[in-house]
């Protein structure tokens, strides 16, 4: 019996088409030995949750630059819990102001938020540590 790689869903919720950041993250996570399922742009919260369920991922990574993060991210987080996927680590990235970040992580179930210029090693380390902790308790 072998340990499967950490499975990560990378999605862009909402309507912005700027996916460079999401692709950089997807590649960095793949290079860190993870299985990355990339869904692309234009995803509704329902589509993201369905994909996370079918793919049985450990992590949902959301990239959002449109400014709609206070609407879309809480929706994804809530719907994941409703679908029985509360164990999923939710990581978000994009243009998200500090006060919104604080609210999203403290009240809306987002585990971490990374802005532009973040070192990908930091994200990899966070995902590894958090997934290991959640796998141990499940």
């Amino acid at each position: 019996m072998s340990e499967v790689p950490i499975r990560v869903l990378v999605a862009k919720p909402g309507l912005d088409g700027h996916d460079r950041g999401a692709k950089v993250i997807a590649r960095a996570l793949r290079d860190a030995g993870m299985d990355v399922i990339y869904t692309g742009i234009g995803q509704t919260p329902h589509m993201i949750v369905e994909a996370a369920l079918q793919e049985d991922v450990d992590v949902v990574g959301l990239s959002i630059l449109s400014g709609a993060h206070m609407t879309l991210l809480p929706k994804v987080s809530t719907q994941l819990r409703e679908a029985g996927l509360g164990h999923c680590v939710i990581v978000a990235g994009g243009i998200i102001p500090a006060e919104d970040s604080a609210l999203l992580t403290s009240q809306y179930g987002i585990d971490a938020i990374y802005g532009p210029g973040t070192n990908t090693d930091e994200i990899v380390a966070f995902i590894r540590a958090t997934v290991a902790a959640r796998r141990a308790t499940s």
Partner: protein
Amino acid sequence: MNDATVQQLATDVRRGDRRALARALTLIERGGAPVRSLRQALSGYGVGSLVGITGAPGAGKSSLTTVITQELRQRGMQVGIIAVDPSSPLSGGSLLGDRIRMYDLAGDSGVFIRSMANRGQYGGLAATTLDAAMLMRAAGFGMVLLETVGAGQSDVAVVDVADTVLLVEAPGMGDEVQSIKAGLLEVADVIVVSKSDRADAPATLQQLRALIRMQMDADDVWSVPVLPVSAVQHTGVAGVVDALVGHAQWLQTHPATWRQQRRQLLSLQRALESQLRDAVQQLPGWTTALTQLGQRDSDALARQLLEEFVVSGFTKE
């Protein structure tokens, strides 16, 4: 995971519980004893057929998978999709992007898509995908589509697990590609010329039909249809689905003896490779060999490991 949990999971899969199906698929990727329990609990359930979709990279496999699924959904069938992409040989990770082109299927509760990395293993993938298809059938999916990586050895192995092999050829690929594909042409049950809206599609269609006619020689042989399809214009899709359903029905009345024998042989070869590899990797010499990577020839290292295996014999796990 204990056996009672696995049994409960199997029961939930049979009820069509999507979360249970997803978890069972992960279990299968992990391998080991729970997989054997799952196999025992679920084999024989479900009647759906497994269609392997293969073809060169860029031939249009993902787009075809999407339109075939839409057509099957219109006919009231539930569809499971297993989309295989290559693993990175360096990191062991993977970037699985088939969902991008299956955008139109997202959110349909009658469709279940699972992306899988091939882990660079020839035999391992075939076993895993076969188990994954078994799970999807048990969960009630009338047809399971297996989309392959599109090239290399693992693709041939995947083709061998499918009930129906659908080969996708893009137009204008020329004679050289046809000869490379000779092996696949022989095992294809349905051949599709994709992008049939393109001007050079009729010529490709004609060439392939001529090739196939040369191979036909008996009444009890399935006559391989060569069909044009355009995913963009959504033409020819119904014909392809008719052919897939037709082949599944044909298999019910015609036991495909040579292919069954070939599959059984391949299954034995896979089991042999996997058990031999596992056994050799338990030898003390394996650790030593890993430290000599790049310094010594791989063939010589492998030979030395095999000799050590023969001397030390088989240790049960």
